[in-house]
């Protein structure tokens, strides 16, 4: 089996050649800088390449959407970031954005319109689900050899934006052994990282939230914890380490599971 090198298309190059890709793939800060999450982005780009999706990334021109600043109360910094991002996106005549981070998804979809940033925003899970449905992304129940998988709903896809079905649709295609945690969908417990908590120590309490949530996942007996958010991934992977279970139980993003199942 041979390998092909992937050159990730960068918006400024394409634009200079007069090309207008259909989608902007917004990588996000975690995708750019978090070593573990970079692998998720790589897996997702393999899928995009495999499906011949017309896309480009901003690369060095990408910057923080302002989400952590906004949720930590710094509206001034958020709006400055947001206006900068919007003006870059408009400069490249971007109409459609694929996001992989739920926090970026939420802010593009729900909050940028208030600052005249109106784009069609699509979560990578919605895109993947659509390709599976259309038969372009061929995965089947034996893809994961019936390994048991559970799914942790990220707050900013789930409660914040009602995206519950797409991840389950994909996972149920990948394995015949999908199990729910007892707190799932709109009842799901936060991993503890939202609202800028990712970047600070938790307030004093008697337990860490990520441990509470990891215990939910462990109780299912699943050998894969599927996540769909960079922060949830950090938290649950930490949880598995804390519980000394990281050898036997894997925390993988849905994009990684799909790429793996397709042997990309």
């Amino acid at each position, binding site marked *: 089996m041979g*390998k092909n090198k992937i050159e990730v298309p960068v918006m400024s190059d394409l634009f200079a050649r007069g090309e207008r890709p259909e989608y902007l793939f917004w990588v996000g800060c975690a995708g750019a800088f978090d070593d573990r999450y970079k692998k998720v982005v790589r897996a997702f780009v393999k899928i995009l390449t495999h499906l011949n999706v017309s896309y480009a990334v901003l690369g060095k021109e990408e910057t923080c959407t302002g989400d952590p600043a906004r949720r930590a109360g710094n509206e001034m910094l958020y709006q400055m970031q947001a206006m900068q991002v919007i003006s870059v996106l408009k400069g490249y005549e971007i109409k459609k954005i694929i996001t992989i981070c739920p926090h970026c998804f939420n802010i593009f979809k729900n909050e940028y319109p208030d600052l005249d940033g109106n784009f069609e925003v699509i979560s990578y899970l919605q895109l993947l689900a659509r390709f599976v449905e259309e038969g372009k992304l061929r995965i089947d129940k034996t893809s994961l050899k019936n390994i048991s998988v559970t799914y942790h709903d990220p707050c900013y896809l789930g409660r914040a934006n009602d995206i519950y079905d797409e991840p389950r649709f994909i996972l149920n295609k990948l394995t015949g052994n999908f199990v729910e945690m007892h707190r799932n969908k709109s009842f799901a417990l936060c991993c503890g990282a939202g609202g800028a908590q990712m970047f600070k120590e938790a307030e004093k309490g008697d337990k860490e939230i990520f441990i509470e949530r990891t215990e939910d996942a462990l109780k299912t007996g699943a050998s894969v914890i599927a996540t769909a958010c960079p922060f949830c991934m950090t938290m649950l992977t930490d949880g598995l380490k804390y519980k000394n279970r990281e050898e036997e139980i894997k925390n993988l993003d849905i994009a990684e599971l799909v790429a793996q199942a397709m042997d990309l």
Partner: protein
Amino acid sequence: MTRQIIFALVFLITIGAFYYTISRLIVYFRLTRPAFKVKDFGKRFGIMMRVAFGQTKIFRRPFIGFFHALVFWGFCVIIFGSIEMVIDGITGTHKVLKFLGQFYDILIASGDIFAILVALSIIIFLSRRLFFHIKRFEGIEMKRRSHTDAGISLSLILLLMISLMTMNMGYIGYKELTGGSIDGIYPVSRILISLFPGIAAETFKLIYEASWWTHILTIFFFANYLPYSKHFHVFMSIPNVFLSRLEPLGKLTNMESITREVRLMIDPNTAFAAAPAETPVGRFGVKDAEDVTWKNYFDSLSCTECGRCTSVCPANITGKKLSPRKIMMDLRARMKEKGPLMVKNGRDFSDNRSLLRDFISEEELWACTTCNACAQECPVNINHPSLIVDMRRYLVLEEASAPGELKAVFNNIENNGAPWQYSAEDRLQWAKDLEINII
């Protein structure tokens, strides 16, 4: 006639007292800030039918939710009987709504059935509070007063239901013995009455009269007790659901005052385009009761202290100080404390206390993950995270106060465009040496 006059007097006093209490609460709305324009009535009506009348969010706890739904639906039916009693009381008529015919029979029969169902539900609620340890009824914000209040409200409802049942029993008992025709259908009271044979017609009449007065006077008292109680949700919940925020839970409200400033920084020319000082720039974010929106205050009045929000809060579950219920209770308490002072001395009046710090600590505010579990759970669609973030906004924008790590995040975003201290130059590192298998 004397009876009518006495009734009318009592009724007037009830209305008067109620009006006085409510007008005092309503006047505080004038101190609040705008939230959103109330439109999309069709959508709002749909939400009201689902969440309020359909009790969909209450049913997220199916067992106890079922009993609450019984109480709610019971109230919806029984209220017609109460309206009839008021008309009868004032005009001297007897069962005035009977002209409704079959519909009347259905109303009265449902009321009669619901009376016992509501009574049983209330007994379950009371015993849960008295004999079981329900975690969500505890918490630092749950003072003895809250528990007493719950006990009083539940007992009053129980009294209402018992008096309704004895009233119905007295009515049919008397009518049957004296051969009068019975208006309405009473399936449950008929069964109950057969358990007490040998009661004289006069006794039945006495039971009926006593129950009638007990029932209506309890309603009058209850209506005036509610605005001072957590059970104010009996009045507030349906309007609060109707006035729900219609946006996705994940959306935070844009601060227009900041948008103006940022646009000014980016393009100073807009300074002339924008109408200057048309809206006085108040405080950024929420420090005290007068900084909240009318919707926040409405939320606080609608809170039943049920604690569903707190019981799903990840911070609270893991022992942090934050309790979303407390945020709502604190706002209500603070408005009650400062509202009258501001009404008297103006909106700028300071009593050297504030919602922030004297009621809600920074530690509570910084513990929120904005996961929206509280807002998702609230049976009356209260939105806690928006208020929490508004209070963070005050801290950051007015006091430049935030946990050190977050200040570092702000710096990083400002300087490198990322919450971490990495250079934008490295943003494409992940794309290096990327290969795909040829399938």
